[in-house]
């Protein structure tokens, strides 16, 4: 599921970059680097959902998430890039690996690492990717980031936009996360009582 999510994110990133690269006949070095990193990220994401080796899938996910961080960097969103590494590579993947080690993931291929839901998953992933691509392309059709001007993704700019312009959605999200946290505690407590 995580692999699908990152895969769609990457597809979006690559497609969003394409009009820019094609808009000018001579793409800049940053644009070429963006496309190359995007291809690597997409490849890593595809491998991570298709490989039969469980831990390899988690490690390819590191490559995919790290590639996304590099894409953020190339778009001058430095703060977002480091937070991406801190949360996803540093915590989420470690949690995944912890779970895999607890279940003693075998070295080599897992014969049962395949699911009958493969085609349904593919359909969901394609639909999610299509809707994300459509939303992003529709929203940012003609908006290009000026990479040569003042950086627009510094911590200061990000913080100001987040806490002045988008403070209500931000607070709503934090309440949502708090609700999820409380829900997790409730679920884990109920299990304890049954035992």
């Amino acid at each position, binding site marked *: 599921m995580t692999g699908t999510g990152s895969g769609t994110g990457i597809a979006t990133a690559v497609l969003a970059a394409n009009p820019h690269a094609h808009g000018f006949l001579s793409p800049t070095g940053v644009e070429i680097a963006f496309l190359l990193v995007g291809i690597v990220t997409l490849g890593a994401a595809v491998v991570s959902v298709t490989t039969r080796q469980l831990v390899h899938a988690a490690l390819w996910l590191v490559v995919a998430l790290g590639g996304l961080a590099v894409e953020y960097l190339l778009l001058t969103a*430095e703060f977002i890039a480091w937070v991406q590494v801190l949360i996803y590579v540093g915590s989420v993947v470690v949690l995944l690996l*912890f779970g895999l080690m607890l279940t003693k993931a075998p070295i080599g291929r897992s014969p049962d690492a395949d699911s009958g839901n493969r085609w349904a998953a593919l359909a969901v992933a394609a639909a999610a990717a299509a809707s994300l691509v459509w939303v992003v392309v529709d929203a940012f059709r003609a908006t290009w980031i000026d990479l040569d001007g003042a950086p627009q993704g510094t911590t200061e700019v990000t913080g100001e936009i987040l806490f002045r312009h988008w403070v209500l959605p931000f607070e709503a999200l934090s309440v949502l996360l708090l609700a999820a946290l409380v829900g997790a505690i409730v679920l884990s407590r109920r299990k304890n009582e049954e035992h």
Partner: protein
Amino acid sequence: MSSDTLDVVLRLLGVFVVFLVLPLAIGQTEHKVMAHMQGRLGPMYAGGFHGWAQLVADGVKFAQKEDIVPAGADRRVFQLAPAVALLPYLLVLVAIPVGPGNAVGQFVDAGIFFVLAVMGVGVLGSLMAGWASANKFSLLGGLRTAAQLLAYELPMVLTAASVAMAAGTVSLPGIVDAFHWWWVPWQIVGGIVFFTAGLAELQRPPFDMPVADSEIIFGAYTEYTGLRFAMFLLSEYAGIVVLCGLTTVLFLGGWHGPFGADGLGWLWTLLKTAVLAFVVIWLRVTYPRLREDQLQKLAWTVLIPLALAQIALTGVVKVVTQ
């Protein structure tokens, strides 16, 4: 343009030299300090004067050993793991400022987040080693490493956020620039929490249960030999340099000192880092190893509440003084 390139190359070269020299210096200090605290002399022969070349000799020894990959291991992951463990510390060193002005490998805008994020990546190396070794002791070591990471990551980020709030910036040179002497008592709780959580990240005693030799041999590194094993050891000592340097920069004012702050600022940074490294060694000799559940309890019931209290205190003082 070419002078810019030369400047960057020189800076990176300087960081690389520091990366190679300081961990060895700390390792040698550990040999000698531990020995004297235990009423021994430590290495005395290598190099002549008080065994100063002991770690050089160790390095030569490691380089001569056979590089073995266990038959049942996942070859590529097993061989890649030491590099994943070591390289993040090299990257972090690039962003730590040693002196005022421009004395930093590379200025990073969101410096605090950069160092914390990249340091967290190093743990992946231990996890990869623990899983790929095809050894139950390695697997247990890897599990303990992961459990430990989940415990210490949050207090570290929270206390770093407290300093960033106090300074009003997330860049490391910016934080040291904003430093005043009264920050030390103001942020002392956060500093202690940060340092303790950092010790847990480095798997240093008293938090060395992932490599507890009397229980699980050497944890994730059990199957490693030769240079790959040396890389894991080097990453531990490079980690000490990074942790002490970061604590110095965030909580002890970096290059600020009672005198000589203009030309000799970098000496203050080095001195404070060295004192903290001595404390790290001292703790190893002094305290017995905690159990894994004791670390979890310490992290969730002591470190995190203290870190939150520090953030509250920082916020209150910040609002009152403005």
